């Protein structure tokens, strides 16, 4: 339990990133009692999501090699969590942040980004996240010297954060036991970096990429690769398998882990845990041993509005 040894007195909010707990799920896994399923709780990062890792690494690497200087504005397209992370570190490190997001991103996350002093530029909700990417590129092209554009979809620091962070943490906490790793594909950074590290382990670990089962879906943060701009950092050879999950299955699992595990997670985490539990159930049914780790990307409270609670909301 290395978590017990972690120093809790820290000098900067950036030191609070990473080293997240692995929680064993006990109740949604009843049909796989011999195959442990662990949720890696990325909402324990200071910005509340897995995106803190990539955002921090992209900022720090750019500061080191001079791409990001004090006179520049950090701009990127983001559906929310990366934006929260940029905003948080921007505030802590004295960097101005401007974000492009589709206007149908949940109100909660717009408000969080604004709370850190970030400026938001809205793109057409009908064009989805790809529309935000195109608009961010256009803004940068018009005045390239003014901006630092991390481009989370193309920035190697994004997967590197997981290669050096998420992957080693999982191996440290589970050692030889882990047999399967499950993560959803958004920028694909989590899967690319973590899988590369896990593949270096001396025993094979199967890496399973979760993807929405159709182009029009409600699993915020995940990409349906066949119908999307494919992120330059994405390499389909990094994982062993793609596991399509329907919006309904993802949402239902998010509800179940809240009620049965006391874990209130977002929809993409619901999809990841749905796949992780299903894999464990299949191993159990075949009488095979195993140990599955699924990524919990963020908490469910980021998604309360506009989906469920607000009758009227502004786009």
């Amino acid at each position, binding site marked *: 339990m290395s978590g017990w040894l972690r120093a809790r007195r820290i000098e900067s909010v950036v030191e609070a990133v990473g080293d997240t707990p692995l929680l064993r799920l006990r109740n949604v896994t009843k049909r796989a009692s011999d195959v442990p399923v662990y949720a890696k709780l990325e909402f324990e990062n200071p910005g509340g999501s897995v995106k803190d890792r990539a955002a921090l690494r992209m900022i720090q690497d750019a500061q080191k090699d001079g791409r990001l200087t004090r006179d520049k504005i950090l701009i990127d397209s983001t559906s929310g969590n990366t934006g929260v992370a940029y905003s948080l570190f921007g505030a802590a490190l004295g960097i101005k942040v401007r974000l492009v997001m589709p206007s149908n991103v*949940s109100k909660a996350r717009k408000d969080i980004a604004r709370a850190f002093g970030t400026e938001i530029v809205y793109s057409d909700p009908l*064009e989805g996240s*790809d529309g935000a990417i195109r608009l961010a590129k256009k803004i940068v092209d018009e005045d390239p010297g003014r901006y630092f554009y991390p481009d989370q979809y193309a920035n190697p620091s994004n997967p590197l954060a997981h290669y050096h962070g998420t992957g080693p943490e999982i191996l440290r906490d589970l050692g030889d036991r882990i047999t399967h790793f499950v993560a959803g594909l958004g920028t694909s950074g989590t899967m690319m970096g973590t899988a590369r590290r896990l593949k270096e382990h001396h025993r094979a670990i199967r890496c399973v990429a979760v993807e929405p089962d159709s182009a029009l879906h*409600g699993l915020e943060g*995940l990409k349906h690769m066949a119908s999307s701009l494919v992120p330059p950092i994405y390499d389909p050879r990094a994982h062993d398998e793609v596991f399509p999950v329907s919006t309904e299955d993802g949402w239902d699992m998010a509800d179940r882990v809240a009620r049965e595990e006391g874990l209130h997670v977002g929809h993409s985490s619901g999809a990841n845990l749905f796949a992780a539990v299903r894999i464990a159930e299949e191993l159990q049914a075949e009488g095979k041993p195993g140990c599955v780790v699924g990524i919990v990307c963020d908490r469910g409270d980021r998604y309360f509005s506009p989906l469920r609670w607000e009758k009227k909301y502004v786009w």
Partner: protein
Amino acid sequence: MDTIVRIPAALRTLTGGADEVTAAGATVGDVIEDLDKRHPGLKDRLLDEKGVRRFINIYVGEEDVRFTGGLATELKAGDQLSIIPAIAGG
């Protein structure tokens, strides 16, 4: 009466790439039926057995049909219908 329907990027494979199409009907439900005749498969993406899928919002002008009578919402001449995913994706 033809209504203009705005199609999100994720569904444009079903409309030959068009971001706006037209369909006829007196209510939102009728327009979706007609849409499906013109662009087969659309209805299935938008509705399930309980009505509009949980993660899809259909707007008449600025109003979410969930709060105006759902599929029975009546349309007036000049109304524009927008299909907007509840989330942004990516």
